[in-house]
Structure formats: C-alpha cells, structure tokens
C-alpha cells in the first residue's frame, strides 16, 4: 500500500503540472463570441447536434461546438479571419466566412450522395457514435461487433433496472434475472457461456470506469440471506445509452477482464441550454404470481395413505399414518384438520413506486446533469421488497479550449428484502407448496380444536418443515448497500491531434446484512440452541482505478489515423465480517448483544492489484477501408511468477463496399459494409486473490497443540483463461435508410479453461486449480430495423420495428479425461457433468416412456416381445432397478427405456436427454406514433432450450425417502390426481410410493421444452402537444401506461419459463422454485419544466 500512496502523490503532482499548463493557455483565450442557428435548407427544420467548427487558414480545427435541440449554437472564436464549417451527417457541409458578423443563420442541404468524407470526419453526432469505454468511435468506422441500445428506447419503458432494458434488445445477449423478486440478481451471457469455473458475467463499464457489478463473491456462511445486486443500483433514467462489445477485437481493449464481453453504460450529461427540469413518477401494480394448484387436505391425505400402502409402511401406530386417518382418538388429531391454502397466504398484489427528478443544463464552460430518484418496489411475495435512492451529479467544466474537467458522482443506497430460505431448506415459495394442507396456520388447542393466537410452528408429521406463513411474516432478512462511484476526468488538448486524459475513480460498495429468525418461525423451543438466531454481516468492496490516456487523431487528406496509449492501475480490496448468534433470551432482543451462544465470527480481507498498458491504432482511408489494432498487456497480483503478465491482442477491419464504383448503380443502397475481427481476451473470475500462493492454516490441532497444515498448493502454472474470437459482419441499409440489417457470424473459443480440478485422493490434496480444456461457441446474430411508415408530417402516422435473433452452438471441444462430474444438484440425481463433445448444460438421465398399466406389463420381454422367465422357468422376470437383485417394477411404476435390454434399469441406460442452451433467442419491438400518441410493443423469445422442471419434480414425485427425513409427507400438485391407482389404470402419472424413488429418478419425465415468447411490454404513451404544454408553462408533459408480461406463450408447465442461468454452467436451466415474474401495470408521468 505504501507504494500505492506514493503513486497517488505522484498523481497529484502530475495533476498540478497539467493544471498549470492549462491555466497558461487560458490566458490566451479569445473574446469574440458568435451565435447562430443551423437549419435544413427549404424546410427550415432546426438541426440538433450539427457540428460547427472554427477552422483556420491551414484548414485546421480551432474551436468547435454542437447545436442544441433547437439548432442554436454559441461559439467563442479565436480569430475573425477564420472560417466556420458546419457539418451534419447526411448533409453537405458548408463553410462560412466569419468576418465581423456575430449572428449567423445557416442552412444546409441534404447530401446528394457525393463525397461525405469531410462530414464523417467532422460530424460529431452522439447518436452515431459508439463508446468503447476508453474512447468513442463513429459507428461508420466501426469494425467490431457492437450492439447499441439508445436512450430513446428507455424512454418508452419505465424500467427500474438495467436488465429490463437490455433483455431482448441486443442480438446474442441473453439476459435472465434470477427470480421475479424486485432487486434480484441478473445473469447476462454475451454470446453464450464460455467458462466452467471463471464466471460468465460481462464487464460493466460506466462512463469509462469498470465497476463492481457482481454480488459479493467472498465466502459466506450465510447462504440464505438477502443479496445485493450492484447492477440494480443504477437508475435507468440516468442512462443515455448502452453499448455492448461482443467480439474479441472490440473487447480486447479491456484485455484480461473482457472474456465475457463488455457492457458500456454512458450516462446523461448536461448540454448547453437553459435549465431543464424533468420530474418523472410512476406507480405500478404487480399481480401475485399464478398459483400452482396443489391437493387439498382430503386429497392430500388419500395420496399420502396410498404412498404408504404401496411402500408397505401403512401402520396405524405410526404418527405419519394416524395423521392421515380421521381418528379423533389420535392425540394430535386437531393438528391435521385444516384445509390451508398455504401458497395463497404468502402472495399479494404488490405496489411499485418510482420518483425521479433531474436537472440539466449548462453554459459555455459548465454543463451539468443532476438526477435523483427514489424507488420502492414491493415484491409479490410477502416479505420481499426493494427500495433504492439514487443520485448522480455529472459535471463538465471547460477551463479553456484545451483543458476540461468532468466529474461524475453517483451515489446509491439500496435495501433489498428477501425471503430467507426456511431452515428446512427450501424457498418459502416452495415450502408453501409442499406444506401439508391439513395443518393449520395458527396453533390450535389440542382438545377443543380452537384456534390459538400464535403461528403453528411445529413441523408435526413433516418433521422440520417450517410454517411458510410464519416465515414470510416474521423473519427479518435484508441487506442495505451503499454504492458510491465518483470519478474525475481531466482532458487536455495538446494540439496537433494529441489529447491527454486522466481519469481517477473510486468505487465503494458496502453491504450491511441483517437476518433474524424468531422462534415462531424456526418452530424450535427455548431449550434448543438454535431456537432463534441472528446473523449480521458487513461486506465492503473498494476499487480504485486510475487511467492515463494519450489519444491522437489526425487527418491527412484521405487518410485519417487515430491512436490511443493508455495505462491503467487498479486496486481492489474486499473485506468481510460475519457474525451469527443463537438463542437470544427473548424475541424482543434481536441484536447480537443478546445471544447466549455466538455461533461464529469471521473476517476475511483480500487485495487484488493490476496494471495494464493499452495501445490502439486505427487508420481509415477514404471512408472505404478501416483497420484497427489493439494490444493490451495486463499484470495481475492474482497470478504468480512468470504468469503475472499476459498480452491480449485484437485486430479488425472494414471495407465499405458501398464506396466501390460498381455500387453506384444501386442507388437504393445507403450502406453496405463488410467487417471482420479477431481478438483475444482473458478471464480469471473464478479464482481468488491469492490462489497461486501456497497457504497454510492453523486449526489442525492434536494433543491440545495448535497444528498448521497446507490449505492449498502453489500454482506456478496457473494463468488467464483465454477467449479467442473471430467475427465477420455485414451492415447494410436500403431505401433511404428505411430498412437495414446487421449480421454477424462468430466463432468464440475459450482456451486454458480455469478449473478447480478434483485430484485423486492419493495426491493428499483434494483439488488443484489449473488450466484445462477448450470450449467453443459458434453463432450467428441478426439485427433488423425497418421504418414501415415514415411520418410525412409531424402529426403523421409512423411505424418502425426492430427485430433481433441469435443462434449459437456451444461445445466442449477438449477436456483432458473427457468428463468432469459435479456433485448432483438433486431432482432425482441428474448427472451434472461437463463432457467433451457436449454443450455446457446438457443433462443425462433415463428415458421415461410412461407408466406400466398392470404388474404384468412390467415383465421383461425379449426382442420378439415374448415374456422372459427367471431361471426356474415359470416365475416371470420383472424389470428391476439398479441391479439384478434390485426392486422389481410393478403396475403404476414408471417405464424407462432399457437400452441394453438387460432387464435392469441402471446407469447404463442413461442417455443425453436435454440441453439447456436455446437454439435461438431474441426480441421484437414495434413502435407506432400518431400525433401525440405512441404505442410500443416489445416481445422477447427463446426457442429450443430444455429445463429440468425441479418444481414439478418436487410436486409430482409422491415419494418420501423415510418418514423422518426431509422432505417427508409433502403435499403435491393437483396434477397427481391423475396418478395410477389400480391395476389397469392408463395414465402418465406413476403411483404414489414412499421409501423408493424408482419413479422419480432423473429421467426425461422432468425435462420440458423451455421455449417461450413473451409479450413483455406494451406501452401506450401520450405527450401533450408543445403548445398546450406551454400554456401550462411547461416544456412538456407526457404520460405512459405500461403493461408488463401480459402474455407468455409457452408449453412449459412451470410457473415461469425464464429460468436463472447462473451457477455452474454444468447445471444451468433448473427450475428451483424461485418466485416467478408476474404481470403488472405501471402508470408513469413525466413533466419537463
């Protein structure tokens, strides 16, 4: 750290040095200020964002400014002998003498297809640039694959989080939130999962600074507690645009952090104009999620009795049996006489509110954009909610023509209330579905059956299964986070095309978590050590990033070159403190001051430093050819010795075919550009800060002495996972830019996968992190835009549509040893494995063919269909499970395909039965405007992926492993009413059967097609005509009504086909019973003063 402080001091010295240079030049500032407007020739339409530059006699730019929304500009000029050049994309540029005039009215004409070079060079139109984080580049010059989502798209959608804004908008970018809870985590996959163990989350860059975007990844002993998702800290209304760097060349500028792509967020900045005040408020309602119908108490009891009978455990002396029989002599009889609809009691219609106020404006030298917002989203499950207060202050200060500063100071406080998993192990949502409906919500008097005041919190026949209603209402579980991301940038125009820029930024993210489970929720009594429990945690992450850039930009006749040299220093500190205690004397004391037993206290600190050097060079010739080269060299404290540094190169180029003479005849083509790129990026997300260092820990004691033993081996060979990606794309627009498409084909290969490989136990250690194997993602992405109706007048009918679709194929191409097997995620023990030649996310299991109607049907048949007999020649040989001596299948049991015809259903009959990767996915947007009205539809879709319906597994398996172990005596879905019950029943639902899981083992029975198309948003908007607004002394007022998730077309039988893709890529696409997304409507209003 000492070195770092020293470095910071040097930075200050530098800053002062740069400042002094800047002030010197300010002294020479000119005094003449000119004003003017730029309008379109003939129509007189004001042109916003046109470039107005002062050029000297040697045709060099001296000063420049852009017109505001009304086409006005103000420019302080250096010399009245110079000329003004006005440029606007798609228009002929125009040069005007200045002379003694101070007021200009300039009209320019649309380009007639002539030489637009100059326009391209000079036009600086925000709408046509793409941010790469480090720099901005004109979209015309782009040669790598970048998807852009523009601010106006956000305006039509009152979203409260960034994931809702990205989902379905960019081809090849898969966005799934982990549940329907407000503030829930988001998973973003750009061009498929490319890593097994290093994470698949893209890098997020806001205003040039990489931010902490993932949930805390330290070790947590508090698994069920509410988590913070830092991406939810961004107020969408602050966002100007989002650019997503998808390919290797584009992302190479971020080198070792960019393997999963880069999402670049640009926030709104002030513009030179009078102050704009915008107030935005919205109020919404989210429906309670649709219930999965479950058995009522009577049906439940019959089903349970059948399960026992079929297992031979029906015994009138067992509590489990007696609870299902209506025998008032049973002493707990009154506990089992209710008919509770548990699931209904934990759901509600939720209200969401959002208020946002922004001020923006600026003058010649200062521009500002200040925004603040407050969001309060209830969750549609009782006990969930999300509150957020954000503020952002973006300031640009132009000290002189050469020196400028900008500062961005965002601050967010979020509070995320989640439902802690019940102590019996499931989500509250899941527990509410399986809790016995015969049990009451509130305790009852055992003799009279009268309802008492307290929650019924004993598990009863369901052992430790908690009361979900008590849990949802009485457990406190929230996390408050403080996210501060200030950064300051200094820019200095050295002249001769050279610019220097320094950005210094801090990202502080603190989380305070609190969890309290009272005895009424845990169901334990005072003499149990864990009868109530309190947990708190403090997580802190601090990141400092210092960037130095040197940018160069010159034009030599038809050749334009630009370059970038950068140096980035980054430090990252992670701290955690976790405490937990049990047994407070009273539920009135809910802090750690009370508990009689402190269960654990632990802290953990880690530092991670990195240094990077970036060089980028671009050359463009005649707007026809362009080439870009990027090299980034990264050094990281995460790696040891010779592996500390790695180099990540990227190269790309374009050829604007449109500029070829043979294209001249095809006048209807407005753009035709072929681009290609190749690049390498790195990933080290899966490893901790000190993984490579051999570490020893105390705690291995003997004879009362403290022993120390090795916790991990030294990793001399561990290095970055490398993603190598090649991309070829074609951009085209036709018919007066009314139709256009972007198509990209890519091949993305992950090499040297970082994986914590299990070692043979003979090695004496269990795992070693190393680089092994390759994964390949290949795909094609298509973006289409069409302006179907272009309004002829301001009040005319306009209709434009955009559509994107992506197809990708994932393949594990190389894996030493062929297969990596992971511990089973349950649901009948699906084999979670990554296998060479498979995609990440494939499932293996048995093939389910139906249900044996009779015992006789379960007899083994030979190839000719004749019955097979045992060795004695007359006993029929039945199909058996696991081994030749395993349990025999009977009527009502699942039929599995016996691939090897050995009469035994075992591992050898497991085949590949599912793949979680969609064949294609994308989105469709339609926007119609007429007069002051607008209607926007947005639909996202996914096709061809499989889901393990874990919820259905849990709700249809009708099996308890033993009477006592969880999940015992669970309620099941109403669909089990069609179960097999007697010989000859023909159904697809096996019989209820305790103690034997033969009918519920991993098989195609649980796999479903996860394809869906969702009308995720309909927005109906109205903006008061300007004149009327002005009568109200307002600049504008508009209102929107948005309906989200109105329809979902899917064959998936679970609550929501949008399944989290987080976690190990070997086990993606499992429906684990998270709260589903719900239908809701929101009314929003925006007032501009």
């Amino acid at each position, binding site marked *: 750290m000492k070195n770092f402080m020293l470095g910071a001091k040097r930075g200050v010295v530098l800053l002062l040095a740069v400042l002094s240079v800047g002030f010197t030049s300010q002294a020479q500032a000119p005094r003449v200020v000119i004003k003017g407007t730029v309008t379109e020739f003939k129509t007189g339409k004001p042109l916003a964002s046109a470039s107005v530059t002062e050029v000297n006699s040697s045709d060099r730019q001296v000063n420049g400014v852009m017109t505001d929304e009304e086409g006005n500009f103000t420019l302080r000029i250096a010399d009245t002998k110079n000329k003004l050049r006005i440029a606007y994309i798609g228009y002929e540029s125009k040069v005007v003498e200045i002379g003694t005039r101070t007021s200009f009215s300039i009209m320019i004409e649309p380009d007639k297809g002539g030489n637009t070079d100059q326009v391209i060079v000079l036009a600086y139109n925000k709408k046509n640039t793409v941010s790469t984080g480090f720099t901005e580049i004109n979209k015309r010059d782009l040669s790598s694959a970048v998807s852009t989502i523009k601010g106006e798209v956000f305006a039509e959608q009152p979203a409260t989080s960034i994931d809702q804004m990205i989902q379905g908008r960019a081809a090849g970018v898969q966005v799934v939130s982990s549940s329907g809870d407000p503030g829930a985590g988001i998973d973003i996959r750009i061009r498929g999962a490319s890593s097994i163990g290093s994470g698949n989350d893209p890098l997020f860059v806001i205003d040039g600074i990489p931010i902490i975007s993932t949930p805390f990844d330290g070790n947590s002993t508090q698994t069920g507690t509410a988590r913070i998702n830092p991406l939810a800290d961004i107020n969408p209304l602050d966002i100007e645009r989002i650019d997503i760097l998808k390919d290797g060349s584009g992302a190479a500028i971020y080198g070792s952090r960019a393997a999963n792509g880069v999402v670049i967020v640009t926030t709104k900045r002030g513009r030179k104009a009078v102050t704009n005040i915008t107030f935005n408020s919205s109020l919404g309602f989210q429906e309670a999620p649709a219930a999965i119908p479950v058995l009522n108490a009577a049906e439940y009891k019959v089903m349970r009795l059948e399960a026992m009978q079929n297992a031979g455990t029906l015994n009138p002396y067992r509590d489990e049996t007696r609870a299902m029989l209506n025998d008032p002599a049973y002493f707990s009889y009154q506990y089992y006489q209710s008919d509770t609809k548990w699931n209904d009691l934990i759901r509600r219609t939720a209200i969401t509110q959002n208020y946002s106020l922004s001020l923006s404006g600026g003058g010649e030298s200062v521009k500002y954009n200040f925004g603040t917002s407050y969001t309060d989203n209830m969750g549609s499950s009782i006990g969930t909610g999300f509150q957020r207060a954000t503020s952002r202050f973006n300031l640009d200060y132009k000290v002189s023509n050469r020196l400028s500063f900008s500062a961005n100071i965002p601050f967010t406080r979020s509070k995320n209330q989640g439902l802690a998993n019940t102590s019996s192990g499931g989500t509250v949502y899941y527990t509410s579905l399986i809790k016995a409906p015969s049990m009451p919500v509130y305790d009852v008097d055992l003799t009279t059956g009268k309802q008492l005041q307290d929650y019924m919190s004993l598990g009863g026949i369901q052992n430790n299964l908690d009361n979900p209603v008590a849990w949802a209402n009485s457990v406190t579980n929230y996390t408050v986070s403080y996210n501060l991301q200030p950064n300051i940038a200094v820019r200095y125009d050295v002249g001769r095309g050279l610019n220097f820029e320094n950005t210094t930024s801090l990202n502080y993210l603190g989380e305070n978590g609190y969890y309290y489970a009272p005895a009424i929720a845990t169901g334990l009594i005072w003499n149990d050590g864990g009868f109530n429990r309190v947990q708190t945690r403090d997580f802190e992450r601090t990141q400092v990033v210092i960037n130095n850039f040197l940018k160069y930009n010159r034009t030599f006749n038809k050749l334009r070159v630009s370059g970038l040299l950068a140096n980035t220093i980054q430090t990252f500190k992670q701290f955690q403190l976790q405490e937990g205690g049990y047994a407070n004397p009273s539920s009135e004391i809910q802090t750690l001051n009370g508990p009689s037993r402190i269960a654990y206290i632990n802290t953990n600190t880690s530092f991670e430093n990195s240094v990077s050097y970036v060089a980028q060079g671009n050359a463009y010739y005649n707007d026809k050819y362009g080439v870009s080269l990027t090299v980034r060299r990264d050094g990281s*404290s995460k790696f040891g010795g010779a592996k500390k540094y790695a180099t990540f190169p990227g190269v790309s180029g374009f050829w604007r075919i449109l500029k070829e003479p043979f294209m001249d005849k095809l006048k209807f083509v407005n753009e035709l550009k072929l681009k290609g790129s190749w690049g390498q990026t790195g990933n080290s997300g899966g490893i901790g800060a000190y993984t490579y260092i051999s570490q020893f*820990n105390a705690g291995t004691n003997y004879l009362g002495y403290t*022993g120390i033993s090795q916790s991990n081996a030294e990793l001399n060979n561990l290095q970055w996972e490398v993603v190598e990606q090649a991309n070829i794309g074609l951009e085209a627009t036709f018919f007066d830019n009314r139709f256009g498409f972007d198509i990209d084909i890519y091949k993305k290969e992950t090499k040297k996968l970082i994986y914590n490989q299990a070692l043979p136990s003979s090695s004496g250690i269990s795992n070693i992190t190393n680089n092994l194997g390759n994964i390949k993602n290949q795909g094609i992405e298509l973006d289409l835009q069409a302006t179907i109706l272009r309004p002829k007048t301001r009040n005319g009918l306009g209709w434009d549509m955009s559509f994107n679709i992506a197809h990708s194929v994932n393949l594990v191409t190389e894996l030493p040893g062929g297969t990596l097997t992971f511990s089973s995620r349950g649901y009948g023990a699906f084999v979670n494995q990554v296998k060479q030649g498979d995609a990440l996310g494939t499932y293996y299991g048995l093939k389910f063919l139906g249900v044996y109607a009779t015992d006789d049907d379960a007899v083994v048949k030979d190839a000719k269909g004749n019955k097979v007999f045992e060795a004695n020649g007359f006993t029929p040989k039945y199909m058996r499970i696991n081994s030749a001596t395993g349990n025999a299948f009977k009527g009502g049991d699942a039929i599995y395909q016996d691939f090897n015809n050995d009469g035994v259903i075992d591992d050898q009959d497991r085949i590949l039965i599912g793949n979680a990767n969609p064949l294609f996915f994308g989105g469709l947007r339609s926007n119609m405007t007429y007069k002051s009205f607008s209607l926007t539809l947005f639909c996202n879709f996914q096709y061809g992926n499989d889901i393990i319906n874990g919820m259905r597994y849990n709700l249809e398996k009708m099996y308890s492993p033993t009477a006592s172990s969880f999940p015992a005596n669970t309620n099941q879905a109403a669909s089990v009413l069609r179960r097999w019950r007697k010989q000859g029943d023909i159904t697809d639902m096996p019989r209820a059967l305790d103690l034997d899981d033969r009918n519920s083992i991993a098989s195609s029975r649980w796999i479903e097609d996860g394809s869906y198309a969702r009308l995720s948003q309909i927005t109906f908007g109205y903006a008061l005509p300007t004149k009327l607004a002005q009568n109200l002394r307002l600049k504008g007022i508009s209102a929107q009504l948005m309906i989200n998730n109105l329809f979902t077309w899917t064959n998936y039988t679970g609550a929501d086909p949008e399944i989290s893709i987080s976690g190990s890529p070997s086990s993606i696409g499992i429906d684990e019973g998270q709260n589903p997304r719900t239908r809701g409507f929101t009314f929003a209003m925006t007032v501009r003063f």
Partner: protein
Amino acid sequence: MNSLAYKRFLTTLGVTLLLGFGFSGCKKFLDQKPENAITREEFFRTKDDATAAMIGCYDALQSGAGGVAFVTQALNWGEVRADLVNFAATNTLYMQNLDKTQSYCNWAPFYNVIGRANLVIEFVPRIPGLDNNFSVDDSKKIIAEAKFLRALSYFYLVRTFKEVPLVLQAPSSDDVKYFIPKSSADSVLNKIEADLADADASIPVSYGTSVETRGRATKAAVNALQADVYLWRAKYQLAADAAQKVLANNTLYKLVPGADWLTIFSQKNSSESIFEVQFDNGINETNGLRGAIGTTNSVLINYLTGESDLMRGLYNTYAQGNNSWKYSGLTNNSTAISRTGNDPNFIVYRLPDIMLMKAEALVHLGNGEPKKEAVKWLDTVRTRVNLTPYDINRGGFLDGNSSSALMMEIIMKERAMELAHEGKRWYDLMRVATNDSMPGFLVDRVVLSRSVGDRQLIKSRIIDPRSWYLPIAQSELQANNQLVQNPFYR
C-alpha cells in the same frame, strides 16, 4: 499553442508516464500476500513451525478426508470383514459384498496423512538453516515422526488394497505429478521398511508428558510397527528382534493389572499403551468409533465364555447398546458408562499385541527355545487376566516341541480375546492364511461366524484370496486414469 508550451507538456507527460510506469511496474504492487493465512514462504522457518506442521500430520489421524475418518476406516477394515463382530445382513462389508462405489473403499484419509507427512519430510530439512534454535538433529526427530506416520498409513493401505500408488512427493505445487499408477506391494513394503529404519535411528524414546509419549510416535511405536510389517512379510527373525526392542523397555511399558483391564480403553494412555490416536471431548475432538463396528459375534463370546475370561469380557455384555464395549467408556463390570464423552482413543499398538506378535514370530523360528519363549509371552498375556497358563511346566500343555499349527491356533485365539474390536483380526487372519499357506484359516473362520443361511454366499465371495483386498473406489479411478482396478473386481 506555441511550441514552448507544447514541449513543456511533452516533458511533463514523459516524466509522468515514466513515473506512472515505474510505479505500476513496481514488483511489490503485483505481489500481494494473503492476510488470513500463512504462506509457505513464511512458514517452515522456525522450530515452532516444524512442530506445528507435525501436529498437523497427527491431526490427520483424528480427522479424515473424503468424508471418512481415519480411525473409523482403519477399524472397519481391520474388523468388520472378520469373525468377531456382528452386523445386519445389509452391511456390505460384513457380507463381503463389495463394490467400488462404497465408502469402505475410500482411502483418502490415509493419503491425507501421507500428504501432510510428505510436506514435513520435504520442507522441515530447510529449517535448521533458518533457525539457530533448531538443529539438524532436531529436524531429524520431526522427520522420523512423519516417516512413522507415512509408514503406518502405507501399511494399512498395502494390507487393504495390496497395490497402491506410492506417493512420496509433497503435494506442494502444480508442478508435482499427481496422477500416479499403482506400485507393487513389495515396493510399498520396502519403502515402509526403509522409512521405519530411518525413523528408528532418530525418533525419541519418550516426550515431555506421558500423554505425548502415548500419543506421538516413539521408538517403541516404530519398533512395534516394524514387528508388524516383518511379520506380515514372514521375516520372522526381524519381527522377533523388533518386538524385543519394545519388550526390553519394561520401565516405560508395563501391563496394566487385570482388574483394571477395562481402564486401558476408558481411561486411555495406560502404562501398556505404545501408540494411541488421541481424542478429547473437552476440546471437541470426538469420533464415531463407539458405534462403528456393531455388536460382538458369538465366535468371540464363545472364546471368552469357554475360557471363563472374567476380566476381558464375561462380566460384560461386550456391548453397550449397539456400541462396542471397548469404545463405549465402560470402566468396570457394570453396564454403566462412566465416560460419557464420545472420545475413545484408537489404540494402534499396546504391549500384549507386541507380546503375541513376538510369540507368533518365534513359533515360526523352530522348535526348542523359540517356541518355549513363545509360550512364555502367551502366558504373560493370559496370566495378567487370571487365565490358566499354557506352559506344560505350569499345568498347561505347550512346550518347545508343540506343533506350530496348534500354537498358531492358540495365539490367534488369544489375540482375538485380547485385541478384539481393535482393528486387528482381519489382518491377523489374512497374515496367517497367506504366510502359512492355508486359506482356510481365514475362509472357514469367517464363514462359520455368519448366519447359516448366508454361509454359502459368504464362502463364494471370499474363496478367492484376491477378494481379500478391497476394490479401488470409483471416484479414485475416475480421478486418476493411471489406476487399474484390483484384479478380483475387474
């Protein structure tokens, strides 16, 4: 901009970049050290580090790896397949119905000890150069302890699996070869002998406290293991010599009076104890030995009843509930448990074991004096618990010319009565059956101990001596493509 300002800027920039690059290039910036752990560079520097690392090795005997405890596994391997315990027919190890998926095949706890011992053996020798208070001789003592533990672990492995990977390199970095094929039983046993010879040369006779002397490797522990290894390899003279080294130290190792026989187990670290894996409920060190091996088989009950062995069993039920009487904390003849903590020690060697090992070696060394001495050691064990001597001169029927077969029969019976449920019996049966070329010695005894209905099945499963070794666990075969399954299970 005038060119002066331009030049000034460039100079400033140049200096800045140099500074910046110099700063960022600073090596320390990218060399971060963990705050919550000791790095290997910081460890293995002092005398205390050497001791702490060694304590870590012993801890591996207490704990385990791969979800299995060392002592439980050792006890299961040595006892459950033999004839002195009783299990339900659902116990696959008891039913000799073995396959590679069972946790009985998990050898991880033994290699965990070996791995930690290998680290000590590799890194402790560098400490004398760094710490003046730690001489080369001091380092040899620590290394001797590590070699003892490595030898002990390999001895369990070689007796249980026959051929196993012989891992001698510390698991210290990713440059180490981790996928190691099996070595022959002979080369493993040779390495065990060599390790023990090294250990014998440097290991202390005793430690500061008596608990340490019973709980850490000592010269007697090394010699006891040597005797056991030599006996296993039918090197009878060497075995007798090694056992004699232990027996010679009669000041440190004395038999506990017969009346206190149960205190050997309940009070732990008795005067006859040579090496015990220590547990202490007081510091949360407990184990599952109490319930690991079920109740007592009628074979053993018949031995004890037939001999009217009042000290070692007859007063008791041989079990407390389903717990073996040696691990349940019984201190006297009542059925009341006086030691409630679930922390019995696992006794690896105690004096009667050595006496009977010596007797066994002597029987194989010929008629006359050797056999006479064998009878002497046999009777020492018996008379301690008030049983009648075998010596013809003391009213018995054995002398220097008695048949070897008869004497082996008697020694094995005595071992059963003395050492039952201590994880010895299966290896005893295997050793005699193999070295004396009479497979029936194992097969018949095991078969007879099982219920009548199961005998045919049990016999079919163990008639092939290759089946006496366990299969290599499936997880291990998956993780290490160099391994080949043991012959019986291919």
